[in-house]
């Protein structure tokens, strides 16, 4: 009995500091933000009504969903292609694929967004080269629009899509593929009707992770969108710092959390957490 009591004391003592820290520094202020959404500038549900009626807010939400959908499809497809080589390639191919996945993954989001500015801007590499060879006379508008945002976000999110895909491809039994080939299925057919369906949980996991991440994306859209294709996260920033409207910023945050929470619940219905690493 005494040992039992001291066990519980020990657990409580060891776990308390972090839990206390997060309650004070995260849970409590989050409730404060929720309170803002109901009380600023006037008490009531006014901010949530504004979310449903304000044209600007509506258009930002729709743009965010549209960009997130496009980015999800493109980056999961691209990640799938490189993951196949990373998991099932020859040793040399694997090293190269791993390098191409991990180096961008570890480089900061700012450096990567800046790299795209250096490539895509009016005086950037692509426009300079295309003009030098006389292919175009006026620079193409590649950044400060939705195209630039989608390119930059896809680049950022491909490595995040790779990990769940790799985990599902590693657990796949080779003999099934050999059986399909042995029964006369072509390479293409084996890939599309055996390999891809068997990695479905990885595809669902990767798609949901990328989609959830892109809903709350801030840095890349703000730099590559140049203020012209504002997404939800940047709208929150603008409401807080440029047109002080803390209530609306807080209300958008609350809606975003609820939406992401619902998507996460969906994620864990289909995929177990272990399959995501």
């Amino acid at each position: 009995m005494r040992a039992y009591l001291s066990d519980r004391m020990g657990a409580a003592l060891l776990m308390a500091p972090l839990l206390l820290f997060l309650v004070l520094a995260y849970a409590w202020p989050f409730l404060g933000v929720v309170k803002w959404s109901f009380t600023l500038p006037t008490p009531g549900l006014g901010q949530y009504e504004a979310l449903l009626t304000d044209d600007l807010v509506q258009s930002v939400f729709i743009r965010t969903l549209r960009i997130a959908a496009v980015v999800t499809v493109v980056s999961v497809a691209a990640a799938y292609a490189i993951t196949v080589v990373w998991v099932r390639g020859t040793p040399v191919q694997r090293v190269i694929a791993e390098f191409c996945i991990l180096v961008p993954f570890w480089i900061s989001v700012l450096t990567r967004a800046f790299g795209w500015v250096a490539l895509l801007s009016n005086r950037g590499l692509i426009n300079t080269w295309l003009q030098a060879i006389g292919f175009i006379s006026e620079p193409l508008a590649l950044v400060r629009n939705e195209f630039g945002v989608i390119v930059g976000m896809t680049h950022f999110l491909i490595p995040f899509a790779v990990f769940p895909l790799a985990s599902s491809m590693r657990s796949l039994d080779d003999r099934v593929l050999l059986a399909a080939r042995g029964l006369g299925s072509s390479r293409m057919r084996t890939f599309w009707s055996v390999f891809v369906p068997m990695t479905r949980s990885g595809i669902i996991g990767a798609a949901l992770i990328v989609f959830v991440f892109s809903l709350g994306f801030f840095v890349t859209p703000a730099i590559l969108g140049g203020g012209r294709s504002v997404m939800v996260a940047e709208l929150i920033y603008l409401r807080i710092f440029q047109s002080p409207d803390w209530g609306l910023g807080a209300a958008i945050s609350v809606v975003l959390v609820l939406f992401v929470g619902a998507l996460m619940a969906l994620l864990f219905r289909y995929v177990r957490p272990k399959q995501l690493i």
Partner: protein
Amino acid sequence: MPTYRPGPVSLIIAAFVALFLLMPLLAVIPVSLTPSRMLAMPSGELSLRHYRALIEDPRWIDSILLSIRIGFVSSAFSTVLALCFSLGVWMFQPRFTAALVGFVLLPMVVPPVVSAITLYFLLTSISGFSSFFGYDTWLGVAMAHSVMTVPFATVLMLVSLSQLDRRIDLAARGLGASVWERATRIIMPNIKFGIITAALLSFVLSWEEIGVTLFITSVNAITLPRLMWMGLRDNIDPAIAALSVILIIITVLVLALRSFVVRLRGAR
């Protein structure tokens, strides 16, 4: 060994993806060597003036030192908190473990912008009482970074604890070791690789944190990413290209070293 290799079509598509992933990292190299004061491709002569600017301009040095200081403090803080918490979970397996771990992981899964406005609320509230700990102070930034990095540190610790054999702890316990002795002399030496990784990851995450930092700093606590952000939004400063090249080289070197060490350990 997989017997089923990707075919030529897969390899060609993967090569395009690889090129896409590396392209923006390669693009900053020529930009960093431009003699121009604005973002442009060098035409003809090359110059190292933007690398010199990094050393000579005190703003860059100050922000690098500040980022290192914040990284150390927040990484130490979140590593210690995460270690204690994970030890508690592993040694005592209390009830509601899943719920408690889920709560600790919240800052990792909640959209960063929502965490940012939450920490902005916290630090502006603290600023009412204290002038050296709150909005736009380095201690405030360090605390906010700890909130953001502690879930990652906890995940790493729990993963390395889950690979530990429970019987060695049971043996120590049976031989009469106290909780303190079990933690410090049995468990921690066995997960030291996980602890070091957690500390390093926390430092790196703090070093490059921008989403939250943007909300909680204005003029005093200018970390390196914050300074880069200012240079990116207004007039694009090619010094950022020079800095990016240096950061990319460091990343490549560290990753190469890591895979070398992993191979060496595997060979033994």
